[in-house]
């Protein structure tokens, strides 16, 4: 069994645990490479289906290419797509011109998700975060509880031994399930290559620049790159000295920004 096989088998096991343990389950799909791999793994786990809702918390500031991709693959992969927008915040004028990125991310993503949970009553949410993305994500668990206020108690997390995950909580708690936790950025691309998965074109270099991660357009910057194929991206990542989320302004706007965002419920 090689490295990708092991990761795939582990993710499938976790997805099947989540499907068994939570009666109201959703998977967050941002149209990025990670959550797309996650949907693919769900189809692997459930023999071609995604048997729960695919949720896009839409800040309305995404790239046009991402919306087009969403429509195409939601149909092709037969997804039960749910789109959530924090219309109230948008009406109040929350945007990247008026507010700092941490505030906008909190309002449009975290609060937007809270509103959807209140309606949909999901008790399990599958999220495609990886430990190598950020120091606080490195401390995540596979099954990670969030209380009614969405708080992450990172100082007192349930122990996870031998693939036994704690899934039984009161009704106001939801559990974030993280099947990709042990994957690294290059693993994701190797898997995209192996499985021949479609990804948004923005990942591929044009005119010497490409997007390494995809977020909201106003605060996501491309990196210098000539990698215009999956193979070249993998080669590039073998030698890069630049962190994956360097182009994401919300991470760098203040010290411990991710810890602060995540403690309040950010993905």
């Amino acid at each position, binding site marked *: 069994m090689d490295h990708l096989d092991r990761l795939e088998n582990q993710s499938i*096991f976790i997805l099947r*645990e989540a499907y068994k343990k939570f009666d109201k389950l959703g998977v967050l799909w941002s149209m990025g490479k990670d959550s797309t791999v996650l949907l693919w793994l769900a189809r692997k786990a459930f023999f071609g289906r995604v048997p729960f809702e695919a949720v896009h918390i839409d800040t309305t500031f995404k790239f046009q290419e991402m919306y087009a991709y969403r429509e195409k693959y939601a149909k092709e992969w037969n997804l039960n797509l749910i789109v959530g927008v924090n219309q109230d915040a948008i009406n109040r004028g929350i945007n990247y011109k008026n507010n700092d990125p941490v505030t906008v991310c909190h309002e449009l993503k975290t609060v937007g998700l809270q509103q959807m949970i209140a309606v949909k009553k999901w008790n399990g949410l599958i999220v495609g975060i990886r430990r190598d993305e950020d120091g606080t994500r490195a*401390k995540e668990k596979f099954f990670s509880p969030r209380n009614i206020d969405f708080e992450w108690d990172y100082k007192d997390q349930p122990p996870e031994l031998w693939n036994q995950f704690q899934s039984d909580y009161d009704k106001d708690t939801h559990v974030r399930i993280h099947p990709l936790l042990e994957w690294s950025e290059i693993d994701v691309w190797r898997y995209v290559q192996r499985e021949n998965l479609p990804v948004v074109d923005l990942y591929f270099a044009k005119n010497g620049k490409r997007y390494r991660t995809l977020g909201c357009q106003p605060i996501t910057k491309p990196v210098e790159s000539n990698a215009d194929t999956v193979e070249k991206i993998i080669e590039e990542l073998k030698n890069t000295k630049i962190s994956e989320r360097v182009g994401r302004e919300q991470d760098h706007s203040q010290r411990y920004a991710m810890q602060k965002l995540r403690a309040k419920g950010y993905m």
Partner: protein
Amino acid sequence: MATLSQTKVAGSDTQTHNAAEEALRIVFVGHVDHGKSTLVGRILYETHSVLPSKIKYVEEICKDKGMKFEYAFLLDALEEEQDQGITIDVSQVVFKTARRAYRVIDAPGHKEFLKNMISGASGADVAILLIDAEEGLREQSKRHATILSLLGIKKIVVVINKMDLVGYKKEVYDTLKTATSRHLASLKLTAKEFVPLSAYEGENLVTKSSKMPWYEGLAFLPLLDSLDRAALSVDKPLRFPLQDVYKFDKQRIFAGRIESGKISAGDEVLFLPSGKTGTVKSIEKWHAPIQTTAAAGESVGFTLTDQIFVERGEVVCHSASKPEQAQSFLAHIFWMGSQHLEKGAKCLLKLTTQDIECTVDAILKVINSSTLEEVAAASRQVAKNEVAEIILSAKKPVIFDTFDVIEETGRFVLVSDRQVRGGGIILKRAETYSAI
């Protein structure tokens, strides 16, 4: 052996480039302040596994705090951790060497966070026990060694750290090596290797240190490269704990992960505890090459030639090599709950995909996991961070193997008040105790 330049070149990739070889999972354990995070941080630094931006970020934090560069901050991401200089929760990070990638688990050394250490250590192939050359074996070093033995982690490397503080003296190293070997032997553990080093000064880390010419073994990273991953239990009897049964269309697919052995189309299989049988018609995967056999570690599905009705919690096996089936068994457990575990307590036993209510039938022995001394038997309760030998009686038959036969089906967790509060391994069935 790797030279400095070779290792630097090979380690200069920030991510895995050997796609085929699986990462080795290593956990760093030991007493608080004995330098686990510093060692891991220094390794990340030496293998170029942290990005320049992260180093700059830590430089700025250290400058603001008025301290010299702290390698541990490359891991301890939480504000509280950096303020207090301790690891609160496990971080998992990756570094790579000439041979392969390593998934590193930096376990907290403080007693208060033992639960986090156990959680982190349970998935490791190799454990590194760090001991401060000045302080020697301390309470948490011993406690962590006990936990390693209970978790079944057999590959242990002992690092005698902070050799710079004792003038790189051979005598200090030899004395600690003897004391540690003796302690590990009392736990039926054997260290594969001992390495003297200074994490902060980077001595004996990547290449052999000129300050310790008396040391004859490998430097730390080349030593890690010489170790192999814990093997999957492919050659043991089939144990396929049923995770779920899917009926998305006309087919009924039995899904799960193979814990040990192999399953093939055409096999006659037995489901326990129901005793139902069937013939495997096909091995099912989606969007993957067709296969007629699947083995330990694979998450697969299978179909049967004739329909039977079984649920999650059954264990699929071959009738010629059945697992144990009993309602009562003897186990070693470690307790993580703040409330004591008492005789007569009711818990939920989770073993593979079985969830079964059980009762603590007897507490035979309670051991202080640090001193290894037996706590007065009269106490009849297991306190937080203690280890005990108990008899558990389940409401229904439990399907298991003893831990020494098949680890994957010989270990369990105990849930009480919906929290995972204990973990343990099964020593043997207990015939003489009747189920309650």
